[in-house]
Structure formats: C-alpha cells, structure tokens
C-alpha cells in the first residue's frame, strides 16, 4: 500500500479542513482576547465557565494526541497491554475528584503553586512548583509534537522531512498565538470545540468498525487476534509487558504513574480555576469522567479495529511506534487506500488529530507560562511587586520561549510512542506534584522544607531515571539510538520516583527546625472545605 501517494492525492482536502479549524479557532481567540482585561481573565478565563463547558474543556485538555493516536496504536500493536493506558488514565480522575479539585478551587487563584505555597514561605515553594510545572508541561508538549510529526510523515510521505519540521514549527506558532492572544478564555473555547470534534470523529469510527463485525465485540476481538498473528495471546495481558520480570515491573511502574499522575498535572489543575465555585469544579470533573470514560471505551474499538482491518505489519511500516494506526484505520474504513471515501475519512480524522494536538499544546503552554509569570516572575524574581500588567506580559513572553523549547526538542523525539512519552509526564507529575499537593492539603505538620524536598526529590529522581533509561539511550527506539548510557532498566520511573517524592516530603518535614503555622493550616482547611473567602 502506498500511503504517501494515496494521501497526497487528497492533500488539498486535508489542508482545507485543517484550514477551517485553524481559522475558526483563531476567530475564537481574537474574540476571547478582546474580552480579556485583567489577570483573572487571562489565567482563569474570568472564572465564568459552567460545569458542563469546563467538563468538555477538561476532556479536551486530557484526550490528547497521545490518547487518540498513541493508545489506538498501542492496542493495535500490543493488543490488550495497550488498554492499560486507558484504564489508568480514567481511574486517575477519582483522585482528582475526591481529593484535589474542590480544595484547589477554594484555596488557590491561578496556579498549582498558589495552593502549595499557601501556608509556606513563598519563594522557595513557588520556585520548586514553577520548575516542576514547566518540566511536566514540556514532557507532555513533546508527546503532542511527536504525534504531530508522525501524522505529517504519514500524510506527506517519509521524504517530507522538511515539511515535517515546518508543520511542527506551524503548530508551535499557532499555540503561542492562542495563548498570548486568547488567554485562558480563548484556550478553553478551543478545547471545547476540539473535544466535540474528537468525540464525534471517534464515535463515527467506532460505529463503522463495529458495523463491520455486526456489532459483536467477540467477533471484532477474534478478527483482531487472528490478524495480529499472535492468536489469543493478543487479547491477554503480557505481549508488551509480560515478557520478563523487568517488563512486568515496568508495567506496575506505568500503572502507578498513570493513576497518580493526573491529579498532579498543572494544565489540568488550572482548569478548576475557570469555574465560579468548588461545586462547579466538582460538576466539571463529573462531566469529564463521563466523557473521557466513553472516549477510552471507544479506543478499544479503534485499536482492535486497526489491528483487524489494517494489520500490524502495515501500521509498523508507517510508524514503528504505532502512532498512525487511527488515521490508517480511517482510510481503511472509508474504502481503503486510493479510494475517494478512504481519502475523505483519512482527511477528516487527520484534521481532528491535528485539532487535538493544537488544543492540547495550547493548554500546556498556557499552564506553564502562567506558572512562570505568576510564580517565578511575579513572586520570586519581583518578590510580589510586579503589576498585573507586567505579570501577564511576562506570561506571553514565556509562552513564546516555551513554544521554542518544545519545537526544538520534538524534532529529536519522533521515534517514541506518544502515549509512552505522556506516561513519563505523568510519572514526573505523580512524583513531584501530587505528594506536595496532598501533604499541603491534608497534613497539618507539613512545612516549607517538606514541600521543597518532595517537589525536588520527586522531580530530580524521575527525570534522572528517565535520562538513564532505555527511553533515552541504548534501545532501537531510543532518543539517541546510537549511544548507550542507560543503567536504569525500566522505561517508566514511577515505581521508584513516586515513593521517593512522598518519602522526601515526610522526612523533610520531620527534619526541619521550623514548625508549621497552625493558624495558616486552619485558614487553608476552612477555606478549602467551605469556600470561605474563595477568589
């Protein structure tokens, strides 16, 4: 099957569809930018969104290209083992619902660090939280950019190395415009539009796949198993992670990172500030759980459908990590390569995937540049003396810088599976942010030293282990396949780095000379549970 030529015949259609999305979202961005007057508008969209709107926007932020392209690819190649991503990604929302969303909404203003620094010394805690926010967001950005790269390679043919880079550059430029011009209000509406498109596109493909198998799940599974060449092992756990003792540990590590990471993702946490009250924040999480749950159930049909209808060989030939399984499936469902129907459906699904990538990178850029401006610039560098205008201006500059860093890094990372990269972002979030957040909210004795220790220990452990893991060197699909300096055998650091984060926070607190201020904890607790004095 010659993917490149069949796709390029109808490249115009893809360009038109994508152009419509870009123009529509730029329109929204300009409109939102006109309404953005103060810092609360820029960082929190004026706090005026409804629970349903924010639920859609959360889903939009969360159902990234990594979920759509990465999970579908992982299921198509590794069968059941790919499904673990979906389950971990969903169950994780209960942590956010039960422990984090409402207290955060009640006691913070713009960033995650607002809550972490609430009862601590501002500068050290905000510095730590700001750095970890930016690191997590860059890992996550990288995953999205890699997804964008794979998609372009598929659509334009493998020879389009230059075109691929131009696309990554264009994605980067667009995300900076969304954030700098539209702020949180613009970004939120982009998420909402994208969430609706993604759900519609996924639902369409799910129905088409199931229709081929008479809406009989067992029949689809059987077809996928026999097309995979692995038989019923394809439907059982173990193909990717059950090979050796090490891969089994990797699986547990991944599982931990997924389930504990969500409630520590800065770009998800700032979403809770866009609604007026904690109760609306709760409603938005409930909507998000419903929408995201249905979406991940549909990834099953997409992944197994791609395995059955496209086949692992074709998928691997197009992208070794499986990132193009979903668009290939779309082409197949439309009538196959070379057919008009195939080209149309491929174009539609590719445009949806691009929309997804754009929206998620905008959300990530916003969260990290907001943290840079509000935490590092206003509170650490200027010691709280920056005006609101200066703070927002520095956020816009930071958006440009973060966009540039993400573009540069993503050019090197295109062989990695987008879902696996996102799992690394989750591991860092679960190790550095979640322990600090939970201790801050629920442990009275927790103090500045504890907060700084858990953030840095979790962050440094996770990042160090990743650098010396097969993700970066020593493997066929590593970032640097030609050198080998790995000594940590797991791909995901969560199993080690999450306990290290929790332990460091506990030890740091006990070893510090300072005592936690009971009055500040009383204030945090009363505010977080009752909404008294919430912004």
């Amino acid at each position: 099957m010659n993917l490149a030529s069949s796709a390029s015949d109808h490249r115009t259609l893809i360009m038109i569809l994508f152009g419509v999305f870009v123009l529509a979202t730029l329109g929204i961005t300009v409109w939102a930018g006109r309404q953005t007057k103060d810092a609360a508008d820029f960082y929190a969209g004026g706090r005026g969104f409804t629970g349903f709107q924010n639920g859609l926007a959360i889903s939009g932020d969360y159902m990234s290209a990594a979920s759509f392209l990465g999970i579908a690819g992982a299921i198509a190649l590794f069968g059941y083992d790919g499904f673990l991503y979906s389950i971990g990604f969903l169950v994780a929302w209960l942590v956010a619902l039960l422990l984090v969303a409402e207290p955060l909404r009640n006691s913070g203003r713009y960033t995650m660090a607002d809550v972490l620094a609430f009862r601590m010394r501002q500068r050290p805690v905000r510095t730590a939280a700001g750095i970890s926010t930016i690191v997590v967001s860059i890992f996550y950005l990288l995953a999205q950019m890699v997804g964008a790269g794979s998609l372009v390679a598929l659509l334009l043919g493998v020879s389009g190395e230059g075109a691929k880079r131009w696309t990554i550059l264009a994605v980067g430029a667009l995300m900076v415009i969304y954030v700098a011009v539209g702020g949180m209000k613009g970004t939120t509406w982009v998420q909402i539009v994208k969430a609706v498109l993604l759900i519609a596109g996924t639902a369409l493909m799910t129905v088409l796949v199931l229709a081929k198998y008479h809406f009989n799940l067992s029949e689809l599974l059987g077809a996928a198993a026999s097309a995979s060449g692995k038989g019923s092992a394809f439907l059982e756990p173990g193909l990717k992670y059950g090979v050796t003792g090490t891969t089994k540990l990797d699986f547990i590590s991944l599982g931990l990172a997924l389930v504990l990471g969500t409630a520590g993702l800065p770009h998800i946490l700032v979403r809770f500030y866009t609604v007026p009250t904690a109760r609306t924040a709760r409603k938005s999480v409930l909507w998000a759980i419903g929408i995201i749950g249905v979406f991940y159930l549909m990834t099953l049909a997409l992944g197994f459908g791609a395995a059955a209808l496209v086949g692992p060989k074709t998928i691997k030939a197009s992208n070794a990590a499986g990132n193009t399984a979903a668009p290939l499936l779309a082409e197949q469902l439309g009538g196959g390569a070379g057919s008009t129907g195939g080209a149309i459906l491929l174009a539609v699904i590719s445009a949806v995937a691009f929309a997804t990538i754009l929206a998620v990178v905008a959300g990530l850029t916003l969260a990290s540049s907001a943290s840079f401006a509000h935490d590092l610039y206003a509170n650490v560098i200027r010691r709280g003396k920056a005006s609101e205008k200066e703070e927002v201006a520095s956020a816009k500059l930071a958006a440009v810088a973060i966009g540039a860093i993400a573009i540069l890094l993503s050019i090197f990372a295109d062989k990695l599976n987008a879902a696996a990269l996102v799992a690394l972002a989750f591991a860092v979030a679960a190790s550095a942010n979640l322990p600090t957040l939970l201790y801050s909210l629920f442990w009275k004795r927790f103090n500045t030293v504890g907060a700084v220790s858990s953030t840095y220990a979790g962050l440094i452990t996770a990042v160090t282990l990743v650098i010396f893991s097969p993700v970066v060197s020593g493997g066929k699909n590593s970032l640097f396949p030609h050198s080998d300096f790995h000594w940590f055998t797991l791909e995901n650091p969560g199993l080690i780095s999450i306990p290290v984060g929790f332990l460091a926070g506990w030890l740091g607190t006990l070893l510090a000379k300072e005592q936690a201020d009971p009055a500040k904890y009383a204030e945090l607790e009363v505010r977080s549970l009752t909404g008294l004095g919430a912004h």
Partner: protein
Amino acid sequence: MARPPETVPESFQRIEESPEFQQLRGSFRGFAFPVTAGFLLWYLLYVLLSCYAPGFMGTKVVGNVNVALVLGILQFVSTFAIAAWYARYAGARLDPAADRIRQGAEAALPAQPVDRPAVAEEAAE
C-alpha cells in the same frame, strides 16, 4: 472580581475548632480517604493480576471475551459508580454543612472576627 474581605487568622482557627467544622471534616475525610484507598487497591489488584496471573486473565468468558477484558471494563464501571456515589454524598452531607459554616462566618464579617461560643477545649485536635 472584587476581593472578598480579609478574614483574620484567629477567626479561621475558631471556625476550625468549632464542632460543625470538625464534623464537616470528619464527613469529608471519612468518605474520601477510605474510598480512595479502596479504588487504588482495586486498580492495583487489576494491574498485579495482569502481570502475574496471565493464565487466569486469559480465561475465556463469552466467545473471545476473556477475564482480563471483563475486569478492565469493570474498572470503568467502578469509576463511574464511585463518581456518582461521591456526587450524591457531597450533595447530601458536605454541601449543606459547608454552606452553613461559610454563611455564618460571612455574616460575622467584616466587622469583627466570627462571633461564636468558644468550644476550643472539647474540639481540640
């Protein structure tokens, strides 16, 4: 958005020590902590079974649907159920109490700290 009136720290401590607040915290933690432990253990059980009991997980239930898939779908079901359960619990048990405490405190502001009989001794940490 106008900033709400600043509340003096002592009044927060007084609210925190009030029996109403202690009860609200008890209702919140009494639900959130054990349920979190429960679904994390259930999830962990699923992950460990996938790793170390592939034979059991591969047992066919109906057609090509095996235990692994059924347990995976059950993780979805339990997540939806716990979310709905919490929404009901919070609406019935947490929200009314939180509203009462907040309204009581706001009524006493900003003129002076929350005026409420001191019950600090009984409600000590």
